[in-house]
């Protein structure tokens, strides 16, 4: 999912299911776990989930809980995190640890793409990923098994939230040059035109930002051939703006802190509660420093 100078597209997370390896005889659904996980019915591992801060944020949105204060950072600049106070983080970490301990979700490394190799090679039954990688997965799999897609999993059956969007976006810088500004605007208009968005979606899986793109022939042909692309669009329509996620000044650092603490927890160095409190204290300190130095 290259984000360098790329076209505007809101991207979604979706699950890719592998049906070929499902063996009825061996499948047993975990009674306690209330979310949909295909068990080790012949697959090498059930779920290849990379340690990625973005997944953590999505799980918070799916629970309908906030990440930081001040209206999730949207009413005013965030001053502290609230995922420790509202219990959302602990829910996520507890479930993650349970999956890891049971051997269903081994540690496949950090980053959003680290789980994809396992899935494409047929080792993992499920993986979490961005729609932007859907085309890549389909090409890597190349018909060796059927690839299905589904909504991003929630933590419990009662979760009322939805997914938030993210990914590549378009930015225009003000260089005080009117000619450049006009030219850039023309380029932006081209990039978000229905044609470009339909082509972009068909080639990568990135969600088209222009609703008119749905009427383009390229888009319709792609959906007809690969109905998997439709899942992300349905998922966003089933979500709501209040689950749009947080605005935070120190997000890169925050994400890195989340990944480090989850990694330490999975490696047995700390419990889920300790991980949550460490995340919160580290992030609060960064937010404080940032607010102090940047008015």
């Amino acid at each position, binding site marked *: 999912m290259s984000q360098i100078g790329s076209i505007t597209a809101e991207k979604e997370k979706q699950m890719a299911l592998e049906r070929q390896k499902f063996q009825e005889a061996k499948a047993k659904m975990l009674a306690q776990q209330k979310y949909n996980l295909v068990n080790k019915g012949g697959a090498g591992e059930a779920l290849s989930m990379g340690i990625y801060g973005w997944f953590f944020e999505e799980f918070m949105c799916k629970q309908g809980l906030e990440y930081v204060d001040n209206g999730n950072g949207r009413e005013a600049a965030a001053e502290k995190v609230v995922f420790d106070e509202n219990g959302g983080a602990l829910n996520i970490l507890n479930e993650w640890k349970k999956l890891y301990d049971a051997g269903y979700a081994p540690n*496949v490394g950090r980053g959003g793409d680290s789980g994809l190799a396992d899935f494409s090679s047929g080792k993992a039954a499920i993986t979490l990923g961005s729609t932007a990688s859907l085309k890549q997965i389909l090409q890597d799999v190349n018909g060796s098994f059927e690839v299905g897609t589904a909504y991003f999993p929630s933590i419990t059956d009662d979760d009322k939230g939805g997914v938030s969007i993210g990914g590549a976006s378009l930015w225009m810088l003000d260089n005080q040059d009117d000619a450049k500004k006009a030219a850039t605007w023309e380029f932006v208009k081209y990039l978000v035109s229905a044609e470009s968005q339909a082509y972009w979606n068909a080639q990568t899986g990135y969600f088209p930002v222009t609703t008119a793109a749905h009427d383009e022939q390229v888009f319709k042909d792609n959906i007809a051939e690969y109905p998997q692309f439709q899942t992300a669009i349905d998922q966003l329509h089933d979500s709501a703006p209040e689950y749009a996620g947080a605005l935070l000044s120190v997000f890169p650092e925050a994400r890195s802190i989340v990944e480090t603490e989850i*990694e330490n927890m999975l490696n047995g*160095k700390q419990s889920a509660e300790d991980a949550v409190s460490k995340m919160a204290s580290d992030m609060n300190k960064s937010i404080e420093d940032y607010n102090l130095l940047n008015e």
Partner: protein
Amino acid sequence: MKKLKNTGAYAYLLPSFLIFGIFLFYPFFKTLYLSLFKTNKMGQAKLFVGLGNYKELLQSSSFWNSLAVTLIFVVIVVAVSMILGLTTAVLCNKTFPGIRFFSTAYALPMAIASSSAAMIFKIMLHPSVGIINKIFHLDINWVSDPKYALICVAVLTAWLNSGINFLYFSAGLSNIDETIYERASVDGASSFQKFYRLTLPGLAPMMFYTLVVNIIQAFQSFGQVKILTQGGPGESTNLIVYSIYRDAFFNYRFGSAAAQSVVLFLIVLVLTLVMFKIEKKGVKY
């Protein structure tokens, strides 16, 4: 007349001083300056904290971990790369049919960018589809296991540095007079004795130079960490240069990063001075 001659000399030095000034001296002093401040996200010095950044560093367990990890890393890299370079240089010392191919192969790591090599290694070390696990029938997640991640990065770096070490040692070996080996054979010396008592002392000046250069280069390793492990898992490969990069360009804390840079500079400076002191005693020209 004399005054004119001297001014001429300094005039010739001007271009190089200009380049040094812009790319070496100015950043050096700016870093020192920044290390005394806390900066905003644009890198402008905002809050004067004097030695505050340094105090925070010395109290931060993450920083001490970086130092320890870097030291272990440097020891492994320098040892392995020098042994590799020396072995290959000795192997290619006497001509034999096909030596061209082998000497090119041994010097090849010099031409490979560390980032490209790291990307290749990343695929090779992948637990499911990587070739290392397939050949040895293992199931180890190399770069995600705190025990093995540092060794992987160190071995990769050592291999990359072995190319130029091969070159240095080959040059050093060719400086040794061939006739002393003949005289030693006449005296009944075995090849091990010849190596230990003739080759190694003959290589001493070159070895010293290679050692200094390797240590300084190992301290500056960055590309491999960024691509393979990003400082993880659990900070076990958080080399100090990578830690500086993260603090400056990811966390936007230029003051703290500058302080770490100054500490790194002091460490390498002290090491180099110590090595030069030892050289006076150990190396005979």
